[in-house]
């Protein structure tokens, strides 16, 4: 049973560029959340998608946007990249009515 799959695993982008990260949730899960984890910090909530809509958003600017597809997979898009966007981006999936998330291994984004 595959867990949460994220791609790519590593990415280097130049300041001002745009990036798209992808996530396939664990089988049976219908909700996808995205987190940003800076080095030495705990994950911070970006937003959550359910039924192809953004259900809730954390304290992140509009440069961060997302999408959920009918098969529950999700994308995270970041526009106009800043150096401070360098972080590990984690996707977590869950099932409606249950507690706790299953995390993927993350995408390491480096902005130069």
């Amino acid at each position: 049973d595959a867990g949460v799959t994220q791609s790519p695993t590593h990415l280097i982008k130049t300041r001002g560029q745009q990036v798209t990260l992808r996530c396939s949730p664990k089988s049976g899960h219908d909700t996808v959340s995205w987190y940003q984890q800076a080095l030495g910090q705990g994950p911070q909530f970006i937003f959550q998608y359910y039924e192809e809509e953004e259900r809730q958003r954390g304290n992140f600017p509009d440069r961060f946007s997302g999408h959920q597809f009918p098969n529950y997979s999700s994308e995270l898009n970041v526009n106009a990249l800043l150096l401070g966007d360098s972080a590990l981006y984690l996707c977590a999936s869950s099932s409606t009515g249950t507690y706790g998330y299953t995390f993927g291994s993350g995408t390491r984004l480096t902005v130069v």
Partner: protein
Amino acid sequence: EDQVTQSPEALRLQEGESSSLNCSYTVSGLRGLFWYRQDPGKGPEFLFTLYSAGEEKEKERLKATLTKKESFLHITAPKPEDSATYLCAVQPEYNNNDMRFGAGTRLTVKP
């Protein structure tokens, strides 16, 4: 505002030397408190969920406990493979779409 504070930031133990990690939280109604283990460059791996004060859960050398204001992760006779960052997170009752994480405790167990 919901807050999660973990201490210590880093902990170095000798193999077999038991200790505890602390997670203090402030939340308007707790839906659940979660412990995760995170290895370098990897995503968090689920360990435990605790729902109410007085609850305890165990897994191998790890035992998690919960009070109304804090949770402890007790590590008994740790081994080098227990070295990792341990993250605590709370999910509030009023908002079960968000999980608020602490900064973690980086545990190193030396042989």
